[in-house]
């Protein structure tokens, strides 16, 4: 047996895992080789020394310290959760705000593109103008009663006489409606024109408000006239025409 192999077996012997046949061979070698014999005795003694190492006792408040640290960890965990919630809350707020801002930006840019004629070029001849028929007493008077059975001529109370969208000139009109003659490479008008110009939203809203008011007042007039006519027919009117 070689010394190298013998030293390997010594470790197995110290571990208590040496096979019986190997043990006999090892003993034989140790009897013959003084180096290996010394090695074995030294190894056994040094390992015996380390096995006899006195055990260190933990401090008395070991368990208490563990519990304290656990409590600290738990608090830190709860703090972290709370902080996370706060962040989430503010993040939600930021998200909502940025969503609103983005929406407004998209709306504004879309509107700018639309009015400047970059994305839509309406194919409407500019010459088309609409004439508003004259609203006369005769026209109104020809409106029959609800009781009329003639379908083709039936007009109901509250119906307006034929009216067209008021178009003042070829230059006006909102969102490319009649009157617009823009080109794709048309110069973008200044911001003041975009906001307050004839094509912009502000006059449009004002116009639509005005129209509503106008329509309502006309309706009222028509109603008054109709009732007056009915009274005249039945001869109950106190007012002479």
């Amino acid at each position: 047996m070689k010394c190298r192999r013998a030293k390997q077996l010594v470790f197995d012997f110290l571990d208590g895992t040496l096979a019986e046949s190997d043990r006999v061979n090892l003993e034989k070698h140790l009897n013959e080789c003084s180096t290996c014999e010394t090695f074995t005795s030294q190894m056994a003694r040094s390992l015996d020394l380390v096995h006899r190492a006195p055990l260190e006792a933990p401090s008395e408040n070991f368990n208490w310290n563990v519990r304290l640290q656990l409590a600290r960890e738990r608090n830190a965990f709860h703090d972290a959760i709370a902080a996370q919630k706060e962040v989430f809350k503010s993040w939600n707020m930021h998200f909502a705000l940025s969503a609103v801002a983005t929406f407004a930006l998209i709306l504004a840019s879309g509107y700018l593109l639309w009015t400047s004629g970059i994305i839509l070029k309406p194919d409407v001849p500019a010459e088309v103008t609409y004439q508003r028929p004259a609203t006369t007493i005769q026209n109104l008077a020809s409106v029959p009663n609800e009781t009329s059975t003639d379908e083709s001529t039936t007009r109901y109370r509250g119906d307006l006489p034929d009216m067209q969208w008021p178009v003042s000139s070829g230059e006006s009109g909102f969102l490319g409606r009649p009157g617009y003659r823009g080109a794709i490479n048309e110069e973008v008008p200044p911001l003041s024109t975009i906001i307050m110009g004839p094509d912009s939203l502000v006059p449009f809203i004002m116009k639509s408000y005005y129209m509503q008011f106008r329509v309502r007042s006309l309706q009222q007039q028509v109603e008054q006239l109709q009732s007056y006519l009915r009274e005249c027919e039945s001869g109950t009117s106190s007012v002479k025409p």
Partner: protein
Amino acid sequence: MDPDSLKERARLRSLTDEELMLEVQRGSNVSFDILVDRYKVRLLNYLFRLIGDRDEAEEIAQEAFVKAFIHSGKYKTIAKFSTWLYTIATNLVRNRIRAKSRAPQFLHLWDRGKDGSTESKPIDLVDPGKEPDEEINDLELSMIINQAIQRIPAKYRMSFVLREINQLSYEEIAAVTGLKLGTVRSRINRARNYFRKIVEPLLERGIDF
């Protein structure tokens, strides 16, 4: 303490580590206390012999228990509790060594020998000052062993301490260190050789340990 909780404590004490961990997973803090009681000495001594600083060892041992409790939900009964706990502690030690190696070191300059290494030199720092055949006390013995173990190269020290101080099996050491069984075996044998060479002068002097 009322008799019921005493009875419950006695019942828990009769359980195995793995059963106690299941109780911990169900929310029993008492079970964890019992586990701490069972393992604190072993864990402290492993860490003390491994790093050589008692206070730091106790600190890491406590941290390991805290980590074990926090991650008790991840513990699976297929692994032995002791192996799992030693693995946690070993990883903590590794992290500390890594953090220390990154930090600038000054004190080592005084420790270094001519070749710049402090390891595997014959022991000479602590001379018990005893005559041959004179007995030395536990504290002195502990100090000698500690110094000798600290001189074993760090690479081999962990397996050696787990084997010789904590008497873990080779398979358990392989599980704790994440090494192959053959590697564990060879590292332990190398460490034993280093240890033998380190303590040889003392043994030669015939001091009765």
